[in-house]
């Protein structure tokens, strides 16, 4: 598994952990066992699990297993790394919104966070597009 895929998948696992934790607090609040203010975390819960977990895992595995351009060459790697960086920055802004329970102003980080995550997926798509094609299987005897 290439380095970038490892970074994507590890980050996905971390956001799964945080997303489940936030969901757990909200579910406990729904059951009357925790402070109702945890409901403020609902949008962050959704973004962490849909984007941080599911989308990041998809990008990590796609970078790993999509057909390569040539032998070990995965093509426009700069775009894939750029996508990773933008996505991480976006998730960090979303992470900041957890503090909105105590500092309501940080909720304003939510939309910029989502925009950066969208940009990250866009960059990644520029990388991945040429790799979405039939795999070229070379015969062992081919020149």
């Amino acid at each position, binding site marked *: 598994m290439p380095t970038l895929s490892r970074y994507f998948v590890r980050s996905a*696992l971390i956001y799964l952990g945080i997303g489940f934790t936030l969901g*757990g*607090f909200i579910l406990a609040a729904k059951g009357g066992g925790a402070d109702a203010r945890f409901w403020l975390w609902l949008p962050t819960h959704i973004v962490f699990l849909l984007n941080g977990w599911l989308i990041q895992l998809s990008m990590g595995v796609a970078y790993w297993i999509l057909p390569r351009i040539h032998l070990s060459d995965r093509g426009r790697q700069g775009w894939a790394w750029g996508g990773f960086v933008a996505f991480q920055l976006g998730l960090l802004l979303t992470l900041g919104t957890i503090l909105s329970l105590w500092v309501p102003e940080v909720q304003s980080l939510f939309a910029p966070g989502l925009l950066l995550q969208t940009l990250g997926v866009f960059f990644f798509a520029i990388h991945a597009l040429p790799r979405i094609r039939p795999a070229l299987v070379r015969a062992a005897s081919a020149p």
Partner: protein
Amino acid sequence: MPTLTRWTIRAAMIYLLVGLAAGALYWANAQWSLSPILSSLNPTYIHILVVGWLTQLIFGVIYWMFPIIRKDNMRGDPRLAWAVFGLLNAGLLLRIGCEPWRSVTPNDLNGMGLVLSALLQVVAGYLLILVCWPRVRARAGTGGA
């Protein structure tokens, strides 16, 4: 395919069918007002799909296909992986039982059920990370210890 993966994929397929059916009933009711009880299926049906189907399926496939740790310890301690399967499904089933029930008749029992469901699913999530983390590696480990 390891036994655990077969169980997770089977369970995931059942959740997919149940989640799609529950979602269809919820939205059919929103359009045709069939029965007020059906409006309690949201957001339970969403979590049947995203936790029961997607997350569980992903877990089973990672467990099966990601690079192994070592030849003599391919996937880590299987008891941990089975604990993920047990806790995730117990937590989700508890939610499926208590969440719609609570939206119709809130009481202490379904409230406690939701708190317990939260705890079970969160612990399952942490164990899932523990099981999958060592499998995120450059290449399959070879040899023994």
